[in-house]
């Protein structure tokens, strides 16, 4: 568990664009361990692109992204992949649980790719925290969207990452499920001392998090 209050994510002078069209231009952003930050703004304002930059899935054209003390912009491709697996957790709008694997195998694979010891009891504990431990042997195709989103969160947290990135994690859920999932996200990241950076276009959601950054306002 990261030390509460310690800066987990620090972004400075980050710029990224396509064909000279700037998409992300963020002077500074930081999120501390155990705290949550919402990235808000309308569609096309660069929220998801910023998340991909923080995840190391895109290379910035300028600036720095420092996660848990590591500057991602200087890491090589394979190093970046391994860093992402170990220190980041990612929850996407589309769930992308691997359909060929059972729920428990999805989580065990996440541990394996995070290069942490595979621990079935930790996996079951993680599922239990999200209230889906009885679904361990199920195939993703048999889960409801709410159940699948909980499993996706459990998978993102199973290796105790420093930073959890969530891209519109509640957009495909009904209000009741969305509120429950959001509550779990905040609760579990706080409990694990994990920093949470969440992308949403729903300002009601952003109100439930510690901080918010309106990307539209920065343009």
């Amino acid at each position, binding site marked *: 568990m990261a030390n509460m209050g310690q800066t987990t994510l620090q972004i400075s002078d980050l710029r990224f664009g396509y064909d000279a069209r700037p998409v992300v231009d963020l002077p500074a952003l930081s999120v501390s361990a155990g705290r949550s930050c919402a990235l808000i703004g309308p569609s096309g304002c660069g929220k998801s692109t910023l998340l991909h930059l923080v995840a190391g*899935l895109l290379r910035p054209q300028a600036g720095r992204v420092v996660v848990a003390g590591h500057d991602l912009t200087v890491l090589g491709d394979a190093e970046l992949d391994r860093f992402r*697996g170990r220190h980041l957790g990612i929850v996407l709008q589309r769930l992308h649980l*691997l*359909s060929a694997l059972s729920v428990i195998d999805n989580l065990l694979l996440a541990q394996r790719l995070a290069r942490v010891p595979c621990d079935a009891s930790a996996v079951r504990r993680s599922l239990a925290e999200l209230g889906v431990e009885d679904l361990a042997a199920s195939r993703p195709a048999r889960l409801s969207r709410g159940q699948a989103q909980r499993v996706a969160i459990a998978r993102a947290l199973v290796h105790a990452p420093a930073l959890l990135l969530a891209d519109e994690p509640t957009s495909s859920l009904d209000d009741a499920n969305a509120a429950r999932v959001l509550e779990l996200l905040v609760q579990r990241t706080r409990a694990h001392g994990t920093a949470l950076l969440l992308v949403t276009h729903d300002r009601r959601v952003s109100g439930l998090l510690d901080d918010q950054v309106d990307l539209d306002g920065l343009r």
Partner: protein
Amino acid sequence: MRLAGLAWAHLRAAPLGSTLNVILMALGTASIVLLLLVGHQIGTTLAREARGVDLVLGAKGSPVQLVLSSVYHADVPTGNIDYDEALRWAGDARVADAVPLALGDSVRGFRIVGTTPAYLELYRAAPAQGRVWQAPAEAVIGAAVARGTGMGVGDGFAGVHGLGAGGHAHGQRPYRVVGVLGPTGTVLDRLVLTSLDSVWNLHAPHLSHTRPASAVEDTGRTPGLGPIGPVPGHEQGHEQGHEQEQDHEHDHGEDRVDASAPMPQAVHVQTGSGQQITALLIRYATPLAATTLPRQINAQSSLQAASPAYELTRLLGLVGLGLDGLRAFAGVLIATAGLSLFATLYGALKARQHDLAMLRCLGATRGELLCGLLLEGLMISAAGAALGFGLAHGLVEMLGQWLAQARGVRLTGAVWLLQEAQLLAGLLGIGLIAAALPAWQAYRVDVARTLSEG
């Protein structure tokens, strides 16, 4: 959960496609391995049985037929030759050893061969029970003959004229088994051996034949093959008809005789005085003999000289054309399996784009994704190869057991060839090649774009 486990899970998630690919690969593999195993063992057996025989002397006709009938006992002879003339060539300085063979009779489908004990030495064979024949009408039987007929030392039997069922039975001149050979894995296993005198006596001029009631009329399909030595009363057409293919379905009861009955007095025959034999097996005294002796015999005598090595190579060359066709067909099967594997993996790749992107999000490197796809290709080809190898070896073993009972031919599935290792490497290579392009596509997946697309 390792990447191998993930690859296995992906294959299990598409059972129909995976199974089809494995079956295709297995059928192609089994076909090739079957041909390899059978071809190798038959080639080895043929070479082993011709070991020590450099040249065969026999009647003019087909040299392949002469070699097949005299060395492998697998065809009807081309005819008989004068023993005195054969002996003259046997005495040539270029000849180290010569073994005469006199064919013409059989018992329950097994050929009776009049010869000398040198024939046993040729194959380094010795009786496992009893002894070698010493007097006329004494016989030594091969291991397959003993197994097939149930005969043992002390039993008596009557030879049947011709090499198949339905010939005249020599009931008044029974043989007595004095020895049983141990298994040699050679043609000896399927032969009944006796002295030349025994065969000549049996066909001596003053003796007539008894004809079994079940015997069918001879068809005369093999001119030139007749009893050893002159046999009055056998007209030309009758002579031609003594030869019939081996047939195990004839009445076996007629050739068993009471072994305790007194053996008839052997008719004395002066060896080499106007008698005939079927073939003379020759071993050269010097390799140089190969360049002169066969040509000289063929040019200067009424005999035919045939080299087993040459004829065997020629025969296998002809058979090889057919085998090449079968191998090509098996190759097409394997190529089809490779293409099918490629189509399956490539087709599944599009559906798995998001899975691949998610794996990268979870920390998988590009190299790991590439290896995962290659592993799937390897798993399919390895499973197909394993199934194919097992199938082929099992079939050859079953075939071997059937042939051992029916023909005394040895064939086993418990043999592994170097070519099989090469084939296995080739099959795994095909699996890798089939998976290479999909794996490269997986390597190049643009994670951010794939996730943005949804």
